[in-house]
């Protein structure tokens, strides 16, 4: 029974199949974002419940769950973001990230295998704000930056796939990058992720014009050490 438009109902057997098969495929070909997403969904229910409950404990979080804002090119219009200075969240997101690397909000994979409409929204929201967290932490979308961000996300969300990604991803790095990840970025990620306020409770659509530094202070986000 479909609970939301992109829902694909699956039995336990199918979820196991997707986790094993999808996991193997994602390891073999990490660019298969759909496989990474699938495994994230089959393994993520418990963490999503905790995240949702955390959102329920905050008034902004409750509002997000009620209104279910979706980030699209309409709600985050590029022309509006382009006009913002890079010292704002929206400007940093657009100039430092979206425009530079050619991402659009719609390029995130839809949620399929979560058997609850609200939890499916929480998963979607997590995927969609990922790019904003790049701007918040200052991490670039390189392999190293993504892995450091995954570790940060694990501290923030508890989603198993973020830990798996952070643990297995380093095989893709050079020796020096791996050493730097372990010595500098993982400790930063754990510290910053646990120190920061719950970032899922931020109504990003309403704070795009805020000064990035001020936002970081308010949300207690320590930016990552600069990558060369």
């Amino acid at each position, binding site marked *: 029974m479909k609970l939301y438009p992109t829902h*694909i109902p699956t039995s336990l057997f*199918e979820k196991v*199949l*997707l986790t094993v*098969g*999808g996991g193997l495929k994602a390891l073999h070909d990490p660019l298969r974002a*759909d*496989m990474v997403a699938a495994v994230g969904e089959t393994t993520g229910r418990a963490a999503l419940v905790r995240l949702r409950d955390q959102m329920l404990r905050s008034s902004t979080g409750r509002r997000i769950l009620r209104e279910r804002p979706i980030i699209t090119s309409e709600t985050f219009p590029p022309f509006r973001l382009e006009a913002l200075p890079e010292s704002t969240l929206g400007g940093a997101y657009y100039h430092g990230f979206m425009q530079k690397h050619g991402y659009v909000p719609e390029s995130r994979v839809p949620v399929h295998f979560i058997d609850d409409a609200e939890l499916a929204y929480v998963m979607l929201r997590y995927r969609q704000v990922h790019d904003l967290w790049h701007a918040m932490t200052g991490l670039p979308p390189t392999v190293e930056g993504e892995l450091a961000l995954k570790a940060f996300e694990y501290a923030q969300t508890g989603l198993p796939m973020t830990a798996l990604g952070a643990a297995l991803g380093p095989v893709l790095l050079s020796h020096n990058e791996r050493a730097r990840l372990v010595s500098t970025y993982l400790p930063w990620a754990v510290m910053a992720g646990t120190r920061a306020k719950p970032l899922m409770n931020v109504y990003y659509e309403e704070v795009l014009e805020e000064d990035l530094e001020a936002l970081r202070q308010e949300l207690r986000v320590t930016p990552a050490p600069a990558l060369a």
Partner: protein
Amino acid sequence: MIRPSSLAAAARPLLTSAARATPATTAAAAATAARLSTTRMLRDQHDASGTTHFGFRTVREEDKESLVRGVFSSVADNYDLMNDAMSGGVHRCWKSAFIERLAPAPDTRLLDVAGGTGDIALRFLDYVREQNGGALGAAHVTVFDINPEMLRVGAQRFSKLGLENGGPHVSFVEGNAEELAGIEDNSMDAYTIAFGIRNCTHIDRVIRQAYRVLKPGGRFMVLEFGKVNNPLLSTLYDAYSFRVIPHLGQILANDRDSYQYLVESIRKFPTQQQFVDMMKHEGFQVVGQGYEDLTFGVATIWSGWKL
């Protein structure tokens, strides 16, 4: 699909109008009922409003062709891998059995329809070569397909083996099985269609065109997914079809929808007997029951003769 009650309902007026139901009138009534049920079943494939089935979806008739083309463009590059993954390699046995049943000769002209990547065409030539002491003789196969991507994959494969498109033994032709444009009447010794006919919008037209292009004495052979009649096996088969194959399609080919279409289209295809009736309706004669089940009916070979 035909329900027994509708068959009986069709027969009833014919029976009651007879003074007494003798064996002759009963047989005649049954034959008429069978013809009516075939007609009804042919009509069920498309209803009066001009729609037909695309798997479990209902689509406009004129859209089905391009939808199918889209499916096969999407799967073309991963087609052979997916076939192996889904059937555990058994599809190779089915195709080999198919050619064994055909038993082609060194002078056979074969039209292989929906033959895209060339699995059947290749086996045909291999069989002839084996039986003919290593030479291909005058054997020729025309690989005919609606989808240019599938043909591209096939022609590449053949080229790697030294069999060039347009050469003495193979040619690749793009076109619609419901028309067979460019294929002359009474020109082919054999017609094969393997795992293609269920995707055609008008199966009756495909059979009719096959009849047209075959020489008298020519043989019409279909390899297609059939119905598994054993109840236990069919439960397992359905579970595998709907709970494993679409996910395999997503994992291996990044295309769940095409494989969902595949497993649904198998269910919408006529039964083994219904298809035999459709063949006879177009003029083909059959030997015995006209079909042979492979792997408990997961696949079936139908065979008819133009006499």
